[in-house]
């Protein structure tokens, strides 16, 4: 059988009409005008390019060559399909999968090296180089921004607590805990009236207690424990260090995922996991710091354990899988560590009962954030 087509020799863009004749093992391409055979393509090298067009036109190619034949003869294509194996495989040559495996290893290695090695280490080195004044300015801005958004995020109660007697008690506690400390900048501790059992540390030595934490504590020692833990973050400059690390590893995991095949969600989860693991490290270090600090200030360390156990009971035990996402270490473990540490010196109350009562009433008078 014979079919009409157009032949391009791969050297020039000018085509010429050809007749295509299917042999037993080759496709003969001959000039329509002269009838002379131009070339015969063996079936082993013959490829048909992907179709997907309405009028059924197709292109034939020879492996590794630029020459092409355009044809619209459905009968020829049918016969070719029947006789030529691998007809619709691509005509381009293929690169080895070995190189892909090699580079895949390199890509995973480079990401791991950056995320777990270089970036955290650089963050640590650079943190020390930042002027404390710069960090204070940074913390002040974060504090102002938090003040702006808190009424929306928390509730209308979000105000700064400024009762003078309570403030005095708080200052006493801070002075007692931090008396032996040499910090890069002064501590600034305040209480916000918001219903969260939590306390946060901002860059530049700012610590914010939320009132519900104080209300839910049975003794001043429990609050002192939390305070010592937050001072640990200040001493390690964790806020700044984690910001630097986050800036460095931003988007690195996102490199792996291109399109939105649910991969974006996986990246967010993975980053959450990563952040949590970094933060957990910082929390454990702050705990250790707090135990030593409390001990040195002759404050009961085991009271801190009581605090962990209490919030553990309130929250209920999280499912095991969630532990990897949690930013704080397991509460029971932390309580155990506090008890194990204990006190080496005498224990003296951190506040008198009157002072403790003043501190609990610090939110009797409040101010806008």
């Amino acid at each position, binding site marked *: 059988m014979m079919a009409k087509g157009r032949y391009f020799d791969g050297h020039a863009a000018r085509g010429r009409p050809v007749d295509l004749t299917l042999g037993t093992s080759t496709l003969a391409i001959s000039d329509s005008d002269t009838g002379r055979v131009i070339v015969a393509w063996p079936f082993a090298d013959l490829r048909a390019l992907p179709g997907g067009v309405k009028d059924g036109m197709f292109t034939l190619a020879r492996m590794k060559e630029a020459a092409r034949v355009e044809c619209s003869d459905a009968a020829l294509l049918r016969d070719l399909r029947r006789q030529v194996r691998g007809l619709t495989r691509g005509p381009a040559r293929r690169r080895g999968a070995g190189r892909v495996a090699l580079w*895949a290893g390199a890509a995973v290695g480079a990401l791991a090296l950056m995320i777990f090695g270089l970036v955290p280490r650089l963050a640590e080195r650079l943190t020390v180089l930042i002027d404390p004044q710069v960090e204070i300015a940074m913390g002040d801005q974060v504090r102002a921004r938090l003040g702006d958004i808190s009424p929306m995020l928390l509730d209308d109660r979000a105000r700064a607590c400024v009762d003078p007697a309570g403030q005095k008690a708080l200052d006493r506690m801070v002075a007692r805990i931090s008396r032996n400390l040499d910090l890069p900048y002064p501590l600034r501790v305040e209480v916000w009236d918001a219903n969260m059992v939590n306390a946060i540390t901002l860059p530049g030595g700012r610590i914010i207690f939320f009132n519900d934490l104080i209300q839910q504590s049975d003794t001043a020692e429990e609050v002192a424990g939390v305070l010592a833990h937050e001072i640990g973050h200040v001493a390690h400059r964790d806020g700044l260090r984690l910001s630097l690390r986050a800036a460095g590893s931003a988007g690195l995991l996102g490199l792996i995922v291109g*399109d939105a*095949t649910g991969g974006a969600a996986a990246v967010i989860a993975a980053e959450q996991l990563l952040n949590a693991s970094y933060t957990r490290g910082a929390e454990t270090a702050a705990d250790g710091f707090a135990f030593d600090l409390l001990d040195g200030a002759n404050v009961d360390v085991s009271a801190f354990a009581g605090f962990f156990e209490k919030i553990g009971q309130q929250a209920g035990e999280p499912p095991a899988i969630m532990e990897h996402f949690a930013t704080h270490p397991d509460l029971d473990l932390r309580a155990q560590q506090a008890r194990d540490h204990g006190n080496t010196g005498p224990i003296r109350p951190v506040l008198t009962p009157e002072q403790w009562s003043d501190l609990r009433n610090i939110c009797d008078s409040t101010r806008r954030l």
Partner: protein
Amino acid sequence: MTIAAARAPTDSAPSYHGSGAALFWLMVRTTIYSLLTLGIYRFWQRTKMRQHFWNGIRVGGSPLEYTGTGLEKLLGFLIAVVFLAVYLGLFQIGFFFLGLQLSGGSELVGLFTSLPVVPLIYYAQYRSRRYVLSRTQLRGIRFAMDRDALGYVWRALGHLLLTAMTLGVLYPRMHWYLERYKANRTCYGDVRLLQGGRWQMLMRPWSAVIATLILPFVAAAVFVALDNGFLAGLSLLALLAAPIAWIHYTVSSFRILTDTKSAAGMSFMSRARTGSVIAIYLLGYLLIGVIVFLVTTTLMSGAAVVTGEVLKMPRDLDGLADLLPFVTFWVVMLGYLALFLMWSALNAVFITQPLLAHYVTTLTIHNADEIDTVRQREQDDFVEAEGFADALDVGGAF
């Protein structure tokens, strides 16, 4: 046929022949593979999409051919990840540190951190265009682009600075200069493309964007400064017309830039129309919406029937009642996957392909016989393919 007639200038209009049904099933199949392989198949998916689109475009009766492979895209992507992981990690943390120190701890320092990505985006765009062109053939003759990505980057950065300083008013200047840079480095065989005209041509369509996008923001900022919230809100109302102005600019600038391009003796003319493009979007999304709605309703009622059956099961068969959460979970998961599948397939069929067909079929090539004189050129081999664009997610539509 006389010699005079053979030499008379001939106009040729490219045509588009891609089949919607073929594209739909190609998208369904390749999207499923991509989901099953956690996204790795996407390199092959993009290869097959391009093969489909290229093969549908005919110039002088000959289809374009896409010769790229999925494996080279995967390899290029991995190479880019190695480079980018190191580059981004070091530069981002460095910029954050310097930004903090220099600004004295300003909270705007976060803006610094993303700066190292900007030059890479232009680098990636040039490289990916060069890759696509080097894998495009017509009549067995290869397209190509010169290796000048670095020149492109620093020019783009300069223009970007100027554009930012003029609040975007001078964007057409950047657009034209960068387009000329890319066009003048584009070849088909031994013939080079040439971008003519001047950037002021693009100011007319851009003025609509200035009026509906840039001016409202400037006005709103002024009114906010004057403490007049009402007028500020009012001026932002103009933003509603911005999408139309943007489409108008996209189409008009394509038309203008095409009309001022030439290659050897050939020149081009585009009759792409804003109205048609808007109609394609509106009609396409309407169709997609109706289809997605119908399919979702069918699926949901099917799910309701299944769930109802499970609920009706005798209570003493506790094991079966426990199945309910699992059934619900899988129904939701399958629903999500079905929606995702339909979306990517329908979007390609009802938006991407019609848009491509419109731009192709409204094109005219003057003096098209000149194409016969084009000679072959060397294959441009480079390993990273479009890896940078892929890793940074700045690739084009397909």
